[in-house]
């Protein structure tokens, strides 16, 4: 009963293709028998070691295998770009942050001007090996300094929230590039709540844990009947929950062919036991399984450091340690496969240049972004640096935005393959930021 009926052959489901998303006939004939599944589970470690499941590959549009995978990590709360990628060569930085300024000797020097927060030490080798690029003074046009407005703008791919579309930029990208028979796991948000970037007009699914993603039919219940009737209940219906129900059932079918608990990261990668670390571990698992993942969205909250932000110890350090270790584990685990995977780290805004009275910082404008993998020409800090002297700042003393975040994202999408920039970022006049040389 442990894996319930999703582990069984589930005839009731497969005899009838999902209403929205017909799957190729190949899937039917290639279905494993119950016995082979059990054997497969026993040999799970070996199956994973061979990286890809041939079984899974036949299920979906082959073209989806040629697409890169985009992983978006959103730092919610407005991450302090200035203490993450520190402009240590600026005296104004230390003048504005007498308590929070990080001594240049403890920074990881990046280019003689900027230094990486020491808590991000695990990223050093990725930067030095040219796999990690950093952009500074990046942001949106949102002037409200409101978390919710700024996040709304970014997740919808807009210059600011007062314009344009209600759907998310990832959702639009996915719709514009949808293959004939998309994988039910084409877009996955790791968490229980669907982020705005994946809402509207797409078939994304939110999953907290692949391992726990199963229908748990209690002992004594009529499992076969319940599964069949559940599929019936969701067969029609065009409301959001009915559609989501069909997608959930399809994903259950697909995950049925994986044994997440057997996954062993490669290269000695050690994922932290955090939501982000475990989320990225599952992204790696799905990539290795080759079941058509194209977009993964992960959140890391807690960046609204109005108080107790700390310099080299404190709340920000705590957050960055997890971010650095998680990204490092992910890149290490995937190894050479990272050439087809791009990780983007973004946040809704940066923070005020001057520290406040609570050893923290208030809402500001520009922050930093990171791009890891995907053939990026890294080892560089990109963007136009406006400087931190008072006359260079904006409003109450904030770092101005010199690079539109959409230019970074659009360059990443273009590199990854098929893209429809017009619908993904309407009205954007693309200015390359030079991520790929």
């Amino acid at each position, binding site marked *: 009963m442990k894996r319930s009926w999703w582990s069984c052959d589930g005839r009731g489901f497969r005899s009838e293709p999902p209403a929205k998303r017909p799957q190729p006939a190949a899937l039917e004939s290639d279905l494993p028998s119950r016995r082979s599944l059990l054997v497969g589970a026993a040999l799970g470690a070996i199956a994973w070691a061979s990286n890809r499941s041939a079984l899974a590959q036949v299920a979906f549009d082959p073209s989806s295998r040629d697409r890169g995978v985009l992983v978006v990590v959103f730092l919610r709360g407005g991450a302090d770009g200035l203490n993450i990628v520190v402009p240590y060569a600026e005296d104004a930085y230390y003048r504005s942050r007498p308590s929070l300024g990080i001594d240049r000797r403890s920074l990881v020097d990046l280019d003689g001007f900027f230094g990486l927060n020491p808590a991000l030490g695990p990223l050093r080798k990725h930067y030095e090996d040219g796999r990690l690029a950093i952009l500074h003074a990046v942001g949106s046009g949102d002037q409200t300094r409101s978390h*919710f407005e700024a996040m709304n703008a970014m997740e919808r791919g807009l210059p600011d929230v007062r314009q344009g579309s209600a759907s998310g930029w990832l959702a639009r990208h996915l719709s514009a590039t949808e293959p004939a028979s998309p994988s039910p796991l084409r877009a996955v948000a790791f968490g229980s709540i669907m982020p705005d970037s994946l809402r509207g007009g797409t078939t994304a699914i939110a999953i907290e844990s692949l391992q726990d993603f199963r229908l748990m039919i209690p002992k004594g219940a*009529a499992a076969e009947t319940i599964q069949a009737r559940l599929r019936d209940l969701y067969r029609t219906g065009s409301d959001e*929950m009915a559609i*989501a129900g069909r997608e959930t059932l399809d994903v259950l079918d697909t995950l049925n062919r994986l044994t997440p608990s057997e996954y062993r990261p490669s290269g000695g990668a050690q994922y932290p036991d955090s939501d982000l670390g475990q989320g990225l571990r599952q992204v790696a698992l799905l990539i290795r399984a080759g079941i058509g993942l194209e977009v993964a969205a992960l959140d890391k909250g807690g960046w609204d450091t109005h108080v107790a932000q700390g310099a080299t110890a404190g709340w920000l350090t705590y957050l960055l340690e997890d971010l650095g270790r998680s990204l490092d584990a992910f890149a290490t685990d995937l190894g050479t496969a990272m050439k087809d995977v791009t990780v983007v780290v973004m946040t809704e805004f940066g923070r005020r240049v001057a520290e406040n009275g609570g050893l923290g910082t208030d809402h500001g404008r520009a922050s930093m972004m990171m791009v890891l993998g995907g053939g990026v020409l890294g080892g560089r800090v990109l963007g136009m640096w406006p400087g931190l002297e008072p006359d260079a700042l904006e409003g109450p003393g904030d770092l101005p935005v010199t690079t539109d975040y959409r230019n970074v994202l659009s360059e990443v999408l273009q590199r990854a393959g098929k893209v429809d920039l017009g619908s993904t970022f309407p009205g954007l006049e693309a200015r390359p930021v030079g991520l790929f040389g």
Partner: protein
Amino acid sequence: MAGWSRRGFLGLAVGAGLTAGCGPEARKLVGRGLPEDLEPPKGPVEVPLRLANRLGFGPRPGDLGRIEKLGHAGFVTEQVAADHEEPLHLRMKARSLEIDQFQPADLEGWPEEYVIRQLQQRALLFAIYSPNQLRERMVDLWTNHFNIYARKGRAMYRVSKDQTEVIRQNALGSFPQMVKTSAKSPAMLGYLDNTVNRKGVPNENYARELMELHTLGVDGGYTQTDVQEVARCFTGWSIENRFMHAKGQFRFDPDSHDEGAKTVLGQTIPAGGGIEDGERVLEILTTHPSCARFVAGKIVRCFLGDERLPWTDRLAEIYLLTGGRIAAMLVPLLESTDLLDGPPIVKRPFDFLVSLLRAVDADTDAGAGLQAHLDKMGQPLHQWPMPDGYPDQAGAWTGSLLARWNFALALTHGQVPGTHVDFDALGRRTPVRDLIPASRPAKDVEDDRDHLALLAMSPDFQWR
């Protein structure tokens, strides 16, 4: 009651053929099967069910008949009065919660999970068992409006008092009073960092969210300069932590207060005002037309599913006329036929879980066993980190379906620790076999519990 004959044109168009064989009681409880071309689903059209779902957290067995007897207006009047005595078993259960018997400062040091469990228990127990359902719906609305993340700092020890004095006390009363009490609530002062907002080194966090999320709305007409000026007005609004004083209470610290003159939304606040600076700001904000509109929109959205204009305008007008009386705003909205005719609203996980427990008349301690399911669905109470509260759009919650299905299965098969459903008693009142949507014939589902599980797992039951 002429009102009850209006099943709505939808009922005629949708119900025929789809609900054949489904008992009337079942239809009332579960809604109807829906054809494909409706988007979003039009949901249940029976008036008593719509009222029970909108004003509260859905019907318990027997509620629909009672609402039918009272009539639409009668039920609204009863719910707005909110003067039902709480049932004895609820009072007993609530009284056993220690979080209400100690001052926040005395709770400090208690195990985190223990305190958070009790906070959730209280919210769940009242939503499930209180006959004052409208009040509970408003408590849910305002709790999210004035959201506090219990896991930030010492907030968890302070949220209980905030719930009692800020939210419950004013849920159907005066909105300005709620804002003013919240501004002095240690839970809020700590959560939004006003405790470190001091003269010369202001902290903008509370000032910004007070205007953006609590009163004016982001389009309410304030600027970044207003945020900074309001922050100055609230310097020194803090929490008592001096030796030999009653720790943990609100305290205005004159030494930390910026005594200079300020300008807020064009109004001058003269120098030397002390604590009155902040009080003056609260007065300006809660009497501002933007605040009236923002609060009106929030209420309309909660009950109609969107902020449709005539209603938002009308409620904003009532806000300004009555000085922000919540009940006065609610009555015309709740009595209107728009409440009955509008599209369904998605149930957040809390809504879903409570409505299912009510529908099957479950006996629950609302403890860890139940809360684990709410957690899996993505809505552990008092644990949304950002100050805007849990999202209310359907799109946010599509990922919670599997966890909802698993809860329905576990509940009906007696696998939720601390929670029990008495199927024999339930079956005596309502034939359990009738509870399954007849539009999806389920002849082969033989077990009552499987029937009920499927009912709760259906798309229809995810909407209110």
